[in-house]
């Protein structure tokens, strides 16, 4: 659910944010001394309560948001989406791309005082591949042929085949304190609710269903965080959360499009809060079942693409907070190809393409027919997502103008997946993908991934794309990867297996007294330890 639902808030928390096209901050809070100072706390509202703070055991975004403050990885993404060292100072990749050697930072300590060493990494790796560990993230690690500790601060992994996404898999999932967990059943460990980490914050109190209180790690290897406390307040209802923001009960939350454009456009919010905006790492699309006789014709898919006005959807559904999508990548990231076929709204051309493929309105009812059947299909989407439903409604209205009748059906998520997607019982679906920071999308587009429960559920098959996907993940050379992914986007734009509709913006709001926030392509939370409140503006002086 985490991977395919477009819950704005969740996405904001995990993938954070992107790109800086409008890091515009409207706020009147000025003056006072502006120097970074220690102290104060930030309160963030969260809809879901974390379930498990050992990163490899959790799959919900709330858990990862919190454990992300407690654990670090060997590597992390830099603000330009390149990979940079975190607990690893540097690493070498062998010429054939099969061996990665990590050189770890020395002098890093777990918050209980023990040293962090290569043994902890090896322990984490062995734990995640263990049969008894129920982790959703095993696969990247099962590709490893050999993992070894060369010395206290050197860790080496060997692969069978070069695997580009491998490097980034050595993030915070597999760093665990061996001295505390060795020989224990990790799923039953106290660490799941009371973890010992080495990140910028440590958990000091967790009141189930109410709040999690994190305290800054004064010995954090990258420097003591300025904010003394980070507090997550569990507020399950989004409307309640917004009211809490209004009364100052929380400092930070993700806004919906209507909250961003209308409800926070007041003097009060301009004075007390700053809003941020950048493309989220996700896109919404209309996917066609390639096995359906009507949609197996490329001209029909293209006709529908010309019949939909993406700009209109962004303006109406997202209140302009997003951008039309052209492919499965986010604009202004390295794999994104800006020069592909764009399908500007053109109903004339759409009608013409339909005519060419044999669809014509014979009986004069406004609906095009072929072989005696009117063009009438159903767009399926999951219930409970207003943005998707509104998008489907606009598409329904637009397609009627080119002679295609559309029904919309919404189904509860589990039923939707189990009864319709897995069984391939659909004509077209409206869905969204959260995309990872790595460009590899083998699972979504490769023709071998069309079995039940696999992600190429539309049965897309293109031998050139297959080859390019393979090429892209088997080299660490960024230029070569870029070339492969650029070409894939050209093919996808021409073939239209999906109509890529829009990339929504993430729109968080943060209290104006909190400074040091600079939006980048990977969002705002990447430099959280550097956020601060100037001394004169500090609000929470007492430990809450």
């Amino acid at each position, binding site marked *: 659910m985490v991977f395919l639902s477009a819950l704005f808030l969740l996405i904001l928390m995990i993938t954070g944010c992107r790109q800086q096209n409008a890091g515009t901050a409207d706020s009147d809070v000025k003056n006072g001394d502006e120097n970074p100072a220690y102290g104060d706390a930030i*309160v963030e509202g969260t809809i879901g309560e974390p379930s*498990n703070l050992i990163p490899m055991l959790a799959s919900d975004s709330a858990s990862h948001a919190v454990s992300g403050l407690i654990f670090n990885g060997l590597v992390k993404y830099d603000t330009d989406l390149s990979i940079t060292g975190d607990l690893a100072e540097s690493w070498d990749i062998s010429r054939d791309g099969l061996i990665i050697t990590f050189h770890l930072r020395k002098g890093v300590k777990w918050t209980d005082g023990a040293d962090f060493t290569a043994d902890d990494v090896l322990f984490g790796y062995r734990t995640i591949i263990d049969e008894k560990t129920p982790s959703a993230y095993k*696969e990247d690690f099962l590709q490893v042929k050999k993992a070894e500790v060369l010395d206290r601060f050197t860790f080496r992994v060997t692969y069978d085949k070069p695997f580009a996404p491998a490097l980034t898999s050595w993030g915070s999932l597999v760093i665990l304190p061996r001295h505390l967990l060795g020989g224990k059943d990790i799923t039953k460990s106290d660490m*799941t609710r009371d973890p010992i980490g080495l990140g910028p914050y440590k958990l000091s109190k967790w009141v189930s269903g109410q709040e999690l209180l994190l305290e800054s790690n004064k010995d954090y290897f990258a420097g003591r965080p300025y904010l003394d406390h980070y507090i997550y*307040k569990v*507020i399950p209802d989004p409307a309640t959360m917004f009211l*809490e923001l209004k*009364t100052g009960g929380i400092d930070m939350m993700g806004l919906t499009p209507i909250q961003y454009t209308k409800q926070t456009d007041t003097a009060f919010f301009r004075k007390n809060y700053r809003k941020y905006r950048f493309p989220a790492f996700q896109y919404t699309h209309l996917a066609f079942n390639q096995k359906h006789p009507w949609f197996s014709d490329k001209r029909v898919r293209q006709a529908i693409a010309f019949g939909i006005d993406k700009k209109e959807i962004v303006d109406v559904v997202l209140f302009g907070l997003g951008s039309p999508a052209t492919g499965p990548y986010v604009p202004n990231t390295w794999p994104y190809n800006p020069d592909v076929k764009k399908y500007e709204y053109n109903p004339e051309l759409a009608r013409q393409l339909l005519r060419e493929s044999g669809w014509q309105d014979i009986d004069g009812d406004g609906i095009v027919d072929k072989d005696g059947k009117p063009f009438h299909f159903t767009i399926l989407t999951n219930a409970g997502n207003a943005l998707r439903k509104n998008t489907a409604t606009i598409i329904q209205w637009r397609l009627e103008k080119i002679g295609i009748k559309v029904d919309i059906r919404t189904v509860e998520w589990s039923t939707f997946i189990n009864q319709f997607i897995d069984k391939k019982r659909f004509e077209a679906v409206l869905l969204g993908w959260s995309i990872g920071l790595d460009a590899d999308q083998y699972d979504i587009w490769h023709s071998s991934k069309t079995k039940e429960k696999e992600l190429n559920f539309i049965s897309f098959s293109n031998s050139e794309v297959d080859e390019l996907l393979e090429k892209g993940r088997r080299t660490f050379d960024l230029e070569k990867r870029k070339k492969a992914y650029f070409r894939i986007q050209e093919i996808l734009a021409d073939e239209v297996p999906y109509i890529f509709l829009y990339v929504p913006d993430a729109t968080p709001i943060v209290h104006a007294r909190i400074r040091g926030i600079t939006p980048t392509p990977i969002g705002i939370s990447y430099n959280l330890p550097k956020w601060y409140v100037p001394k004169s503006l500090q609000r929470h002086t007492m430990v*809450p």
Partner: protein
Amino acid sequence: MVCAEKPAAAYDGAIMLAYLAKRLLEMIPTLFGITLISFLIIHLAPGKPTDALSEMNPKMTPEARERLEKYYGLDKPVMVQYGLWLKRIIKLDFGESFSMDRRPVMQKIWDTKQPITERRLFITFMLNVMAMIIILLIAIPIGISSATHQHTLYDKITTTTVFVGFAMPSFWLALLLMLLFGVYLDWLPISGLKSMNYDALPFWGKVIDRVRHLVLPLFVVAFGSLAADSRYMRSSMLEVIRQDYVTVARAKGLPERVVIYRHAFRNALLPLITLIGLSVPGLIGGSVIFENIFGIPGMGQLFFNGVMARDYPLIMAILTIGAFLTLIGNLLADVGYMLADPRIRTGR
């Protein structure tokens, strides 16, 4: 006459005990049936607890999915799973939650590491008891007075008011009240059970803080439930005041107060006792909604999350506890009825 009362009371007591024992024994098959049906229905619903980990996740292979299902014991037939569940439940072990934290379900509902006031079952139970008391304290006087003032303007106004409360969606009313009292007037907190500086408050400060947090949730619950109780009270009162003995009471010159509250009221209360017993499941169901809106960490909130994640052991535990509380509620209502009504107490 006065002397004869003692043996009669003993006789009553024996009947009562036998009755109680019978009812308690009857509860066992009922509870068994409820759990069986619940278990089957939950497993019939599409989706599995492993969905959150595995659905639409590019890192999940079919083998990994099978491993997970085996890990949770979901590869066995449903009846076998039910058998295993039943075996544990006899020892009052609700098993481990299927959610990622794998905590024992009982620990989630009744966390022995937290003070009693922070435990989910306690929070939900206390809120419902308080709500029930408030509902009765308001509904009964409304019911009586609108019966004694039948067809007056007062009757019409109260009737309209309680029905407005009944018809109004509680989540909507909750949001409006939060907006008014929390945002515009800034009198009351919006969500949660206590403030962030709670631990630093003096004793009375803590009490006031708790009460302030409870005002809105309790009002919303009570306002929505006034209709049933007050209307029952009203109609039962109307019936009673037409009875001969009320006429007799009036005829012998008793003041109207005494007629209504001494003679009529006690008899009119009887149907309400049954109604209270029946309202337990409604209150528990209501908790699911208002605990989510007000961010109250009770059992209803836990249940909602459990259902969304298809956390079977957790859902089953809460349903079982809910069913048990309902049956107990009904039993208490019947016992209350017996105590209040001598016609039932004496058997036939």
